[in-house]
């Protein structure tokens, strides 16, 4: 077995990214779509960290980017869920197709 | 103003909590306050009036004072006592009513003392015994008159 390098890690992140994309395509429910988005963001984070670690080990910018992305993801998730719940309250459904006539 | 109220609230609350903790802490450290009676090891102290079950007193000659008048059976509010009478032949050849079996359903008894109150001859009393655990409830149905017991002379 080879030593694990950046390529293997990138494989994980690619796979994770496309799993997320698949979920985004197939799911019609806002919450599950949000989950898919989280997966995609995670794959990006993995990339940042691994690039940082294997390509530019003397710097920390990848790590910082990851941290900021996580923070922003949290903010995004919070707002998204607030919106989802609000939509649910108005429409009694969070199926994206049901809420096309959304008034926001 | 708001701040001082806020702070005094916090301190008042904490103080009230500490008072409670002092009390429990006191008991935690002062073991002489423990009041546990260790039942099977220590004998419980029961009041002599404590009503644990109805017994019929028998003297050393295996004699009791029950005439079979069924006053207790009538007084009992929930049919705990069933008296089966028979006729004894007295030495004089007369027939005399006496108890055959004095059936006492301990599982029904409410320890209300009405039967003891009603008994004209004081044949039955309440005893202190309370350990009535059994595996089979039929064991709780008791016959109070001992086998072979007779009515004491002179009791009417």
């Amino acid at each position, binding site marked *: 077995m080879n030593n694990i390098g950046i390529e293997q890690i990138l494989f994980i992140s690619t796979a994770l990214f496309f799993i997320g994309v698949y979920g985004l395509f197939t799911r019609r429910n806002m919450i599950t779509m949000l989950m898919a988005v989280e997966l995609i963001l995670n794959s990006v984070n993995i990339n940042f960290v691994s690039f940082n670690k294997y390509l530019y080990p003397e710097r920390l910018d990848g790590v910082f980017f990851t941290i900021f992305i996580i923070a922003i993801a949290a903010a995004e998730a919070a707002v998204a869920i607030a919106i989802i719940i609000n939509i649910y309250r108005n429409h009694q459904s969070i199926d994206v197709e049901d809420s096309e006539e959304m008034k926001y | 103003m708001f701040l001082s109220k806020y702070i005094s609230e916090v301190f008042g609350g904490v103080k009230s909590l500490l008072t409670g903790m002092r009390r429990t802490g006191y008991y935690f450290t002062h073991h002489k306050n423990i009041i546990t009676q260790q039942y099977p090891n220590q004998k419980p102290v029961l*009041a002599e009036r404590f009503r644990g079950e109805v017994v019929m007193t028998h003297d050393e000659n295996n004699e009791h004072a029950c005439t079979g008048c069924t006053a207790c059976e009538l007084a009992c509010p929930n049919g705990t006592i069933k008296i089966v009478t028979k006729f004894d032949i007295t030495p004089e050849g007369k027939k005399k009513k006496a108890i055959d079996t004095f059936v006492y359903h301990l599982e029904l008894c409410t320890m209300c003392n009405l039967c003891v109150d009603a008994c004209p001859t004081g044949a039955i009393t309440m005893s202190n015994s309370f350990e009535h655990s059994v595996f089979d409830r039929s064991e709780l149905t008791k016959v109070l008159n001992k086998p072979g017991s007779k009515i004491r002379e002179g009791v009417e």
Partner: protein
Amino acid sequence: MLQEVAKTDTGDLVINVGPQHPSTHGVLHLVITLNGETIKKVEPHLGYIHRSIEKMCESLSYRQFIYSTSRMDYLSAHINNHGCALAVEKGLQIEVPQRAQVIRVLMDELTRLASHQLWWGALAMDVGAITPFFHAFRERELINDIMEETCGARLTMNYMVPGGVMFDLHPDFQKKVKDFLTLFKSKLPEYDELVTGNIIFQNRMKNVGYISKEDAISYGCSGPTARASGVSCDIRKKYPYDIYAQLQFSEAIETAGDCWGRYLVRMEEMRQSISIIEQLIDNIPEGDFVAKTKAVLKLPKGEFFTRVETARGELGIYIVSEGGLTPYRIKFRSPGFSNLSALDHMAKGQKIGDLVAIMGTLDLVIPDIDR
């Protein structure tokens, strides 16, 4: 699909509390409609301990039926028995000896103390403090010992009989009661330290389960529940029976109407009971402890209604007699029944946690409600 979901889901949650639930103090079954944690409706379902005592009493003689009433409100067993004895005496117009009256009142007040102690511990346990429960039982056991010594039982005494009491006082009675009183008075401040003063407890009680004076009357509340709303309804004051008329004590009244008010009323009642016992314990008159009665009691034709104040409120005993050996109809107006009917009113808009506090301060005894 849209409409379907909208119809089926109002966001309400219906849950059962009881009949087997630690906070219902027995087998009360409440069906609670919740919105989130907020109570929208409480619907009591009764009858899980309906023992048909009223029907049973119709076939018991006037001496016998009294025992079954100690099983109704078993925490006020003496007071229930007292009420029944009073009803029979009213019918037969028996004069109860002074000594018996004093003994009865002493026993009543001791029972009230024991009942309130249990309530105090159980309330504290309901709101989550377990230790006070054990401290309350420490004092309660002393009362139980006194009862056991004189009446022969710890809980369901059947001590009061028509015309007086069943046994005379035990010789140690006075001493034991005095010992108990000194001890209890020294422990009352501990109750305050542990529970009354506790900020968490106060916050759990204040502004919870409010009922106004008018509503309390309309719901037929009595006892501490009503007195916490400012209704003066102590039967011992209003329609004194036995020697209550000659006693000095004050009726504990609060106006808050919430759980805290009910808490304070009961705490004050404990102090009042202590003072009543203190007034009587040294002045027990000599004499008979029971009036001479016939072996078989027959009430004249008519209706007899007595009201006594149990630890929970007003107990009414309504006897209809046809002149026979047994009552023709007996109805027990139980305090808990009416107090319970106000539960929905009190709990609306409160949290589930409050429901426990409200039930705790109502001090329900379910067999008293179901009979």
